[in-house]
């Protein structure tokens, strides 16, 4: 694992920049399913979740792009943490000297 740590940090920076870029430039057009739902007239069937934590990728109480960046970064950390925890619980240690 030569330079393993710096590569990991580099990719985490890319992930962070992706969140920032999405917060600024993500298309506000309806996505594929939503567009079809509008065109075919079943968009009104959609129901609200009935609860809000970080609604529509915003952090309540923070304005503008920063709100989405903050919400997105929280999501990144939460997703990373959950899969890492699951992975730790179920992963296996290879035989010593196995090909890496």
């Amino acid at each position, binding site marked *: 694992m030569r330079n393993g740590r710096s590569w*990991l940090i580099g*990719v*985490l920076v890319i*992930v962070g920049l*992706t*969140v920032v870029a*999405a*917060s*600024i*430039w*993500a*298309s*506000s*057009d*309806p*996505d*594929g*399913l*939503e*567009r*079809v739902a509008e065109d*075919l007239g*079943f968009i009104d*069937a*959609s*129901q*609200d*979740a009935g*609860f*809000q*934590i*970080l*609604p*529509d*990728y*915003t952090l309540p109480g923070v*304005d*503008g792009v920063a*709100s*989405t960046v903050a*919400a*997105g970064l929280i*999501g*990144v950390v*939460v*997703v*990373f*943490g*959950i*899969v890492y925890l699951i*992975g730790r*619980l*179920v*992963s*296996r*240690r*290879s*035989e010593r000297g*196995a090909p*890496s």
Partner: protein
Amino acid sequence: MNFTLQPGTLETGIGRLDLHAPDGFLSFPVAAVMWILTLVSLAIALRFMNRTFDERALPLLGITAAFIFAAQMFNFPIAGGTSGHLLGGVLAAVLLGPWAGTIVMAVVVAVQALLFQDGGLVVLGANIFNMGVIGTLGGYAVYRILARMMGGEQRAMLPAAGIAAWLSVVAGAAAMTVELAISGTTPLAVALPAMLGTHAIIGIGEALITVAALGFIRATRPDLLKLRDAYAPRPPSLGDSAEGGTAHA
């Protein structure tokens, strides 16, 4: 949408971001069947991940999930005032294998629903299945077949992953449409051409991002591509159970 902020600031910078199927699109029986299919898939995925997932792939597991979450936020415009976003199932499966890939996709889509109110909870089973399981299990199978046909993974990883990624989006959209039709939300004959047409274009974005991410890893850290199949069982020894080895926590 429920904005608690000043409307003016939001309209300028912030796009739609991700948007998964909300509750209400699927009938309860259809949503329940999809939940069952998803839970069975997750149980199988966890079981096989427990047998085959090498702990050295843990950092890659986390970073792949983080990237897919971030990239899914980025809705890219396609033709006709419509946008699309990455799913990531084929990418996750090529890097981590279909079982760990399925877990990654389930966690991403579940966090989006629970934390961000992106996608309903009743239809969460369907969303995980359509956007995750189809790509990680079906898409990965297609990837392996294509790679073998094109001369092996070493040579054909990128084109095989690109085609499988495109197909996973189209197949996910088709599955969603069938679920909508069975639910009585919209007739299949009308919705299917619309959904397939839109997602055939979105799938190109999926293919490009998948190929770019795999190409980046191959160029910078090709050793990570071996982690998927890295696990080598220990030889059984005294004290081990008949199953051989225990999960390492």
